[in-house]
């Protein structure tokens, strides 16, 4: 195994733990606050300081700052540039190179998102930082060391590594693990905003269009949430109950093989061994008994909720929450409750979209 390279600069007196503010199409993501939580803990252990880095174009920065500033106390390092309106590898590399060269943090936290994984290896290469992808946990150890837990083999193996902070490191973190930092602001003082500038380089990549996900039409494998109906639904017309709940939840509609075979819904929505394998954050199964070929297609979902009239249905063995009941009675009531809640918020966007989650 190659050895650690300890020949570089010593640790800065007050180590800076930087956090890249995660944004998606101009909106701040909750992941930012999870990263900040990790950063704050680390800063406390290392007796250092956490700072934020925000990138954007002049059109979107004001609203982002407006959203962010009331929630944090840390300094926001800001780069405003027309090239940063959309994600671009070169743009982000240029901007972050400028900020990191000026800031010289010991650790940079960013999210293991599609964008993060895109530029982080190149950034690490350019700036001679170490790069740890897909991390789950970071813990400070005595002697300015970190213990980093990485995920490999599709989540089946966790690799723990020690890293000495003599060499700066970029950590790309999985979302949904850390608790988002509490957003209360005891300190009414607005955070400092420090502007940086960057060189613009010509980009050979151009985003032509944004294609927002449409839970109604997107492939069920990409859906973050699914409401799935089975034989218990009882008929093609009754499937509207599933659709309405899905609409209310911003979820896609899926089905078991029985429902597809009976012609109630199209095959593209079939979950299971002879259909598609899905891993959404929420899988709500209504009227599905849970035969092994169906479970094979959805058991890796993050949260499984099952509703069935049969107490002994196999689906309950994998459900995080099981309910015994008649879906024709329960689903409309549930849908109504959700609609009432969304309607009561009064905002033009449903609550589930205000902080667009990754």
């Amino acid at each position: 195994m190659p050895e650690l390279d300890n020949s570089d600069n010593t640790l800065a007196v007050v180590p800076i733990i930087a956090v890249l503010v995660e944004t998606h199409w101009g909106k701040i993501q909750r992941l930012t606050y999870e990263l900040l939580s990790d950063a704050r803990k680390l800063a406390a252990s290392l007796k250092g300081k956490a700072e934020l880095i925000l990138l954007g174009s002049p059109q979107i920065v004001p609203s982002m700052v407006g959203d962010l500033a009331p929630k944090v106390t840390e300094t926001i390092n800001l780069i405003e540039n027309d090239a940063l309106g959309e994600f671009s590898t070169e743009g982000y590399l240029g901007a972050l190179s400028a900020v990191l060269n000026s800031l010289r943090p010991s650790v940079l936290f960013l999210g293991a998102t599609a964008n993060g994984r895109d530029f982080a290896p190149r950034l690490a290469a350019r700036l001679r930082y170490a790069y740890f992808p897909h991390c789950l946990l970071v813990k400070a150890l005595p002697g300015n060391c970190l213990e980093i837990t990485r995920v490999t083999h599709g989540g089946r193996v966790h690799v723990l590594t020690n890293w000495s902070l003599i060499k700066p490191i970029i950590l790309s973190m999985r979302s949904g693990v850390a608790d988002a930092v509490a957003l209360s602001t005891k300190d009414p003082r607005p955070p400092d905003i420090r502007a940086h500038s960057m060189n613009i380089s010509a980009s050979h990549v151009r985003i032509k269009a944004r294609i927002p996900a449409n839970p109604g039409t997107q492939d069920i494998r990409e859906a973050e949430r699914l409401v799935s109906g089975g034989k218990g639904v009882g008929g093609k017309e009754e499937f509207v109950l599933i659709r309405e709940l899905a609409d209310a939840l911003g979820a896609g509609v899926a089905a078991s093989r029985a429902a597809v075979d009976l012609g109630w819904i199209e095959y593209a929505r079939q979950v299971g061994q002879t259909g598609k394998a899905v891993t959404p954050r929420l899988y709500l199964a209504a009227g599905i008994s849970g035969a092994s070929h169906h479970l094979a297609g959805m058991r890796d979902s993050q949260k499984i909720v099952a509703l069935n009239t049969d107490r002994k249905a196999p689906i309950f063995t994998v459900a995080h929450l099981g309910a015994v009941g008649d879906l024709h009675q329960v689903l409309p009531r549930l849908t109504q409750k959700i609609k009432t809640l969304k309607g009561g918020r009064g905002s033009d966007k449903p609550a589930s979209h205000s902080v667009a989650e990754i």
Partner: protein
Amino acid sequence: MRIAVCLKEVIDARLPLKVDMSAGRIIPTSLESRSILNPADRAALDSAMRLKEQKQATRVEAFSVCGVEGQEALWYSLARGADYAERLGLPIAGAPYTAAALALRLAVGEFDLICCGDETLDNSSAVVGPLLAELMDLPQVTSVVRVRECTETSIVVERGLERGHRELVEMELPGLLTLKPDSAEPHYVSFRRLQEVHTRSIPVRQFELSSADTGLIWPKEAKFAPPRARVKKAFTPDARMSPAERMRTIMAGGLAPQEANSKSPIIEGDPEYVAEQLFRFLKHHEFV
């Protein structure tokens, strides 16, 4: 248009694994040592072959940095229809070295497009693609879910973001793409064709990149020096558990995980009560 595809033969991490703690190695538990072509790399190969079948590409060449046991991937690419396959031998394993060897080799081939898988089933680091682009100074689009159009000078792809959102992206050629496993309709290669290609020998090119060069592994220019950290320990949490559950296990100091979900609560009652409980669950987990 000439396309290069980077392949890797990996352990099928979708099957149960045993970890050899002392050596930090993974041992697959199934009957035979099951290695497969990394699914994302397969999609990269299928995407490249599709471009060739649509006559938008003239030549597809496949490369893999691996030992003799990894040649399966290259034979598969030939059976699939690639024009040429070559193995790159390296004394040291590791993503940065892989990227460096590929960069050296591909620079010679005058390729217009390089297709890689976005991540491997084993290490899941997703590093080789972007690193290769950096070393070759190429533009890149990562996380590609579909190749849409292609001309001699540019390529238009759909890029997959979280939650199913997508972007339509245009990249000038020459450039590099990293593709997700579902980005191409998989094409079946019959066993007979696989057997046929096994009679062909795959050319090998050896690279001497070692860590003895004080961390500099790029023999021509010092662009990247990746220090490799020592692996402390590796353990396997119960894969049947959700990530949050696994997290709790790890935080509990690696204690034996509970039987997944056999004791999860089941609510019963009249429809109003059941609906209310479901609603509260959804609210608690912030789905509404």
